[in-house]
């Protein structure tokens, strides 16, 4: 398809849908409804939305959907750290139940017992998985969960009169950028630890970093490299000894289910992204849930409400003494809570452990195969990888000039996703693969074959890569500064029309 911008489909007079009309008698009783509003507050002219018949709107968006490569459609292992796994269709059917879709968050508790039961049951499961004591599902993404944890850290120290003194949060460079970003939003100074030569977080650097200013320590384990820090328990002890709180970014816990937990490693809090490890879909980027778990000691700091079970009834508990208040409206993303609960129940404890084991098996299989590709490598320690690996094309780039960005464009031709990595590129020419438990050996082999093919092309016929993509839905974009020059960027169609006109008139 070559779909126009929706405004280009405008045909005055057409209509996409008719909203419910007012009842004649109501119109008689109250008039037009609008003239009660002071004139200054009435809208003078209608918004310049397009007018399009229903069939055409549907066709337009359906075509756009086909131009989108969802994980249902490809071997989705190129978006490492994102834990793209199979999204069970049964769960999607379950959330389309009107007894889920049509619930208002303020309904009397007696009318939402089923929903609360699901929240509570998921809480119980999460406690088992993490060793934590209470969960909140209010945060609606990993970033918000990290922010909530930073908020709890601050509140905790404030409560103990050390709010001002403890002004630093320690993290590592191979943790997700949001860890640093959210702590900074919460007013903390960020201390970022770089790894040792093997890629392990450096315990000496941590020792040097902690002090009476340390408010907290936030880390992922394994980090984006896929390397697990075996000394994690010592790390948390060092921080605890310095008076800090340890919180664990388990956005991606896919290699660890039933294997090892936040509790045993000494963490005070952790969060899981339900849309990663727990098989809720990514939905183009949300809505999502960052399930936030805390130890008993931090329960009173959780955002409210949390769900309790008492006297055979589920209830919402609002009175937590030191609650940070709210991070998101009402109860978070309930459908995602339901999905993840359903996923856990479809696997059971043994199945969850299999998830972890096969994810690790798949990843190690890929790791061994990718290392055999000419030009590819994986910096740092050999082995020790769990569920993902950050690889590098440094050698390929040196030898052929083909960069990881070039590879990305070429992978599009194979109908496969490929993601470079988060900035900064500590690992040169990086790419990060995470094959999860959802993919079969055949799938992995397909992905590997594409990488092999590109490596071959890089050495033998680099032009085919440099001119990629060849099979995309659109032609190459005009490589000017349309996205970074304020005179040229256009974040909306109306902006584009204005600026394009200016441009022409010049």
């Amino acid at each position, binding site marked *: 398809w070559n779909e126009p*911008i929706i405004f280009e489909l405008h045909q005055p007079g057409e209509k996409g849908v008719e909203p419910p009309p007012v009842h004649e008698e109501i119109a008689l009783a109250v008039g037009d409804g609008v003239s009660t509003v002071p004139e200054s507050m009435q809208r003078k002219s209608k918004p310049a939305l397009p007018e399009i018949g229903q069939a055409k709107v549907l066709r337009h968006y359906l075509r756009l959907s086909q131009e989108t490569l969802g994980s249902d459609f490809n071997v989705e292992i190129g978006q490492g750290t994102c834990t793209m796994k199979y999204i069970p269709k049964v769960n999607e059917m379950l959330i389309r139940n009107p007894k889920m879709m049509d619930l208002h*968050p303020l309904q009397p508790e007696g009318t939402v017992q089923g929903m609360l039961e699901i929240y509570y049951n998921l809480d119980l499961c999460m406690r088992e998985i993490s060793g934590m004591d209470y969960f909140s599902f209010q945060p609606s993404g990993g970033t918000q969960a990290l922010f909530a944890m930073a908020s709890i850290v601050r509140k905790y120290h404030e409560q103990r009169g050390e709010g001002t003194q403890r002004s630093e949060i320690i993290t590592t460079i191979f943790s997700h950028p949001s860890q640093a970003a959210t702590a900074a939003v919460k007013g903390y100074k960020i201390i970022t630890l770089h790894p040792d030569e093997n890629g392990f977080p450096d315990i000496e650097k941590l020792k040097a970093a902690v002090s009476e200013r340390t408010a907290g320590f936030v880390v992922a384990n394994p980090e984006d490299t896929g390397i697990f820090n075996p000394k994690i328990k010592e790390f948390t002890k060092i921080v605890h000894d310095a008076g800090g709180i340890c919180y664990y970014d388990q956005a991606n816990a896919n290699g660890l289910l039933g294997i090892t937990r936040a509790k045993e490693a000494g963490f005070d809090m952790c969060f899981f992204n339900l849309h990663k490890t727990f098989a809720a879909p990514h939905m183009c980027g949300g809505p*999502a849930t960052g399930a936030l778990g805390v130890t008993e000691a931090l329960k009173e700091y959780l955002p409210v409400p949390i769900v309790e079970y008492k006297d055979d009834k589920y209830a919402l508990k609002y009175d937590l003494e030191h609650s940070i208040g709210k991070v998101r409206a009402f109860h978070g993303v309930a459908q995602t809570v339901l999905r993840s609960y359903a996923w856990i129940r479809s696997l059971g404890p043994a199945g969850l452990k299999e998830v972890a084991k096969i994810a690790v*098996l798949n990843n190690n299989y890929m790791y061994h195969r990718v290392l055999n590709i000419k030009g590819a490598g994986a910096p740092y320690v050999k082995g020790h990888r769990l569920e993902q690996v950050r690889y590098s094309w440094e050698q390929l780039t040196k030898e052929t000039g083909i960069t990881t960005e070039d590879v990305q464009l070429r992978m599009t031709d194979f109908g496969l996703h490929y993601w470079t990595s988060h900035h900064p590129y500590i690992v040169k020419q990086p790419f990060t693969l995470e094959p999860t438990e959802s993919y079969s050996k055949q799938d992995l082999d397909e992905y590997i074959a594409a990488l092999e093919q590109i490596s071959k092309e890089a050495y033998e016929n680099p032009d085919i890569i440099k001119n990629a993509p060849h099979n995309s839905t659109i032609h190459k974009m005009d490589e000017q500064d349309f996205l*970074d020059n304020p005179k040229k960027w256009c974040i909306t169609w109306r902006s584009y029309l204005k600026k394009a006109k200016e441009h022409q008139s010049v």
Partner: protein
Amino acid sequence: MSQKVHPYIPNMVPEVQEEMLKVIGANTVDELYSCIPDEIKLKEEMNIPKALTEWELRRHIENSLNQNTGANEYVNFLGAGCWQHFIPAVCDEINQRSEFLTAYAGEPYEDHGRYQALFEYQSLLAELVDMDVVNVPTFDWGQAAATSVRMAGRITGRKKILLAKSVAPERSKIIVNYGSPELEYEFVDFDLKSGLMDLEDLKAKLNHDVAAVYFENPSYLGFIESQGSEISKLLKEKKALMIVGVDPISLGVLAPPSHYGADIVCGDLQPLGMHMNYSGGQAGFIAAHDDETFINEYPSRLFGIVPTVKEGEYGFGDVAYERTSFAHREKGKESVGTQTALWGITAGVYLALMGPNGIKDVGQTIMQNSQYAVQEINKLQGVKGSLFESPFFKEFIVDFTQTGKTIEEINQGLLECKIFGGKDLSIEYPELGQSALFCVTEIHTKEDIDYLAASLKKVLEK
């Protein structure tokens, strides 16, 4: 016990595992975990019930859900931040498509459709608020307001934020927690008769430290704040910014805040095509003018349009990506991550379907229906159909103080009539007595409203 192969985990097949282990050079999968010290390994099995097959799962979950009563089964007058509106079927069709459902962060050439759909969403909402810049949506209105306020702090280099006291208390909590300790907050009173902002109080609190004033229109309490231009004038004098939160479904009939001086406009997309989902339908937007200073302070992703080498064909990409925490970690603007993109796409579909006339009609029907509800409720002895004398949109405060009954009692009575009564305001706003916030939209029929009035009568006479 040897595990059955699970439908979700193809490589549980033992033969395949062996083949793979051979490539790796390991004997067992457990070997691959040798990097984890034994002392932190979990020894016991997790206490989680054993696996259910698809059919058992379905029955289990449906049994739970059957304990719920949906707002489609009762007549629902709850709003207060999450509203029951008409949702065109096409919206559901599009957001249930496997492609959009399971896509994530593909690059522009792979996910062209996702980029275009979100760019179009930005463009459509821009028309509704009549501004040039809209972000890829954030978590919810509260987050959108909290970020707007922080943007204002960075733009002005000031620390003080004034919040209208009529801002939803739950939203205030989000804003305050998100801004602390960086920013300071103070509340501006409202007039107890009209609900409108007390301009004298505003003047008293407005000084050169103030980065911005944030108020909502229509407000959480339903009334329409008609002093926008006056407030804007006061703010301009002090070079403070005006941030207005708005229910977008009102903008077919109400003037968008950009028309009375708003610098940043935020709100929730949920009314534009999202099911309530027990609050899973929320999504926040932040709109501004095409001003580099503002755009550079957005933490969100902003998709921009790029011509391709083919005439009339477009591609898309991130505008000023360098702003974001993806690019610069803690040096980026706040943080960005998975937020609510699918609801952005859905809101786009909704606006494309409704068009200029639909969006006007729905606003007007809401006003008519809600005014009719007040008219009918006013007929009840001792009940004030709308506590404030200002005009309102969709929601309004019903004051039952004189009836001698509490909202709790009344709502219990309504529940027995299969009605979800309005939100009890007596905790958040004790100064309003026994009052409840009722919500009436385009989905309420005359019969629904008449039934509410009749049921209230019955409950009050008990």
